[in-house]
């Protein structure tokens, strides 16, 4: 390295300085919410396996207004997370001659179709 005196700027608060980094941090920070949501669903399955009364208790908690609000908040972040991850899809594929916009669009359409299929399946099973 050079022996000249230099000044190194601090990195504290780096992600708040640029809207691009704020969007990146929201994408990354939203991931633990899905982990918690998955744990909550696993708790429901465990409750189901332990008997009707325990499952009824889980179901009662699941219907609390606070839980419904949390579900909606997580849904918003899930949509944002899906959108932003498919937006970086062209950066992770091998070198292929497909326009980045086409790749992103295909990913988002696939996600919507998968959600609708799962919803239709769940609807059909529970009717």
């Amino acid at each position: 390295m050079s022996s000249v005196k230099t000044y190194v700027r601090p990195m504290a608060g780096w992600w708040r300085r640029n809207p691009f980094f704020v969007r990146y941090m929201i994408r990354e920070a939203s991931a633990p919410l899905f982990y918690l949501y998955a744990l909550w669903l696993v708790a429901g399955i465990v409750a189901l396996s332990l008997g009707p009364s325990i499952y009824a208790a889980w179901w009662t908690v699941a219907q609390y207004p606070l839980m419904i609000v949390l579900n909606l908040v997580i849904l918003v972040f899930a949509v944002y997370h899906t959108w932003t991850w498919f937006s970086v899809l062209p950066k992770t594929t091998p070198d292929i001659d497909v326009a980045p916009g086409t790749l992103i669009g295909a990913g988002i359409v696939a996600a919507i179709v998968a959600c609708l299929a799962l919803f239709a399946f769940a609807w059909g099973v529970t009717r």
Partner: protein
Amino acid sequence: MAETLRTIEIECLRFNPESDTAPSYQTYSVPFTDDMSVLQGLQYIKDELDGSLSFRWSCRMAICGSCGSMINGVPQLSCHTFLRDYHPGKLRIEPLNHFPILRDLAIDQTDFVRNKLPAVKPYIIPKESQALAQGEFLQTPREMHKYYHYSECINCLLCYAACPQYGLDSKFIGPAAIALMQRYNADSRDAGRAQRMDLANSDHGVWGCTLVGYCSEVCPKGVDPAHAVNQNKVASTLDYFLRFLRPNGDRR
């Protein structure tokens, strides 16, 4: 038709290593015409207002990669950015982020030039050397297409200024170096991939990237370093698992 002359405020970061302990900002009023770049604004300051302002530049046409700076917080080539796009607002010009400041807008590029760039062996390593009399190494347009856009890198370092991972840990080999690694790995005339993979797989290699993706946004030459880095994550993963299948294991 006479060009209309307008005035814009340019705020420059100033740092004199001989007298300052920390940088400060100095504002200049610069008259400009519609065709003036930010670099020309800086040149006006140096020529007409304050000869002590230090900054780097050379070609004035976005190919030498010398004049990169933070313009209103965004890494850009100052010759490739126009004053008219910021008027009537102010303009704040700072040295490229994440690099030590030598003086005013000039950064210390030693880390990239001396450490990062040579480490990726940015040259063709042929499988077998070939005498000049045997002619050139041939390549089809399709083979050239695989690496050509990576070869457009001008080492301007905007991508390092856009990479928070490099800012947080300067040992990370970084976007441009990995783009150049990919440029040579993808070249049909090159056989140096195995030599470069040790660095790609290392703690400071491709896994230092968390796919922020801003490097590709700011690249003035369309190199797409984020794509190069993430393709090498796949290559690094394959390299790791395939060695269990090779008869000689880790030995190449």
